[in-house]
């Protein structure tokens, strides 16, 4: 492995670690905000929602907000898991462990997380469409092109999964030839 590849892998590992920290922070903040919305009196809640700017739609029911927060939390958890698995795969590749079952396990985790992310993104899209609130978040952009992008990403990762699975069986064959 040359120096350029090693540097790129190290850079990607650091980026995914930073992403993980940001996701954890965002998740904690979201949890704090949703608990706060449940606890504060109605007047203060309306005032808080004005800051959120859901297209000035402040007459949202508390259960709608809690459900949206839960979906958002699940989306952030999916992103966190994707970044975690990605960092682990990068670490394995850095140590030149290419066709190992651990990589297949992490890729499977990424596949499941992207599927969950896509489904949750779709649910959040439906939820916000109900109250005519659009472009609420920059992370899950609530648009049809993003959904198509997710499906494309899913198919790419699935193809990678199939290739890696075949690669592992070839590696196993090679390891058993003495």
């Amino acid at each position, binding site marked *: 492995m040359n120096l350029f590849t090693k540097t790129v892998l190290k850079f990607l590992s650091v980026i995914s670690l930073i992403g993980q920290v940001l996701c954890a922070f965002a998740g904690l903040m979201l949890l704090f905000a949703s608990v706060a919305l449940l606890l504060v009196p109605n007047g203060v809640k309306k005032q808080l929602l004005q800051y959120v700017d859901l297209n000035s739609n402040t007459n949202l029911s508390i259960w709608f907000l809690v459900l949206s927060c839960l979906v958002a939390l699940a989306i952030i958890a999916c992103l966190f898991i994707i970044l975690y698995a990605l960092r682990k795969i990068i670490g394995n590749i850095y140590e030149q462990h290419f066709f190992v079952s651990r990589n297949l396990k992490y890729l499977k985790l990424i596949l499941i997380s992207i599927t969950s992310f896509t489904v949750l993104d779709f649910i959040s899209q439906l939820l916000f469409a109900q109250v005519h609130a659009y472009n609420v978040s920059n992370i899950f952009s609530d648009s049809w092109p993003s959904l198509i992008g997710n499906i494309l990403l899913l198919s790419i990762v699935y193809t990678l999964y199939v290739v890696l699975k075949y690669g592992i069986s070839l590696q196993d064959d090679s390891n*058993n*030839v003495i």
Partner: protein
Amino acid sequence: MIKINLDRVMLERKISSKALAEKIGITQVNLSILKTGKARGIRFATLEKICQTLNCQPGDLLEYKE
């Protein structure tokens, strides 16, 4: 099926697994896999080294059985 007669040839040459593994440059675990017939294949390079060390022919080590 292909039967490996490595055990018999080693006994005839009075050589231990450890010594043979060291001479042909493979681990004792891999040699044991080879001896027990659990290996899926053998490289020509390994076969050549074994024949060289044990002073035998590939046919002495491998046998076809129905």
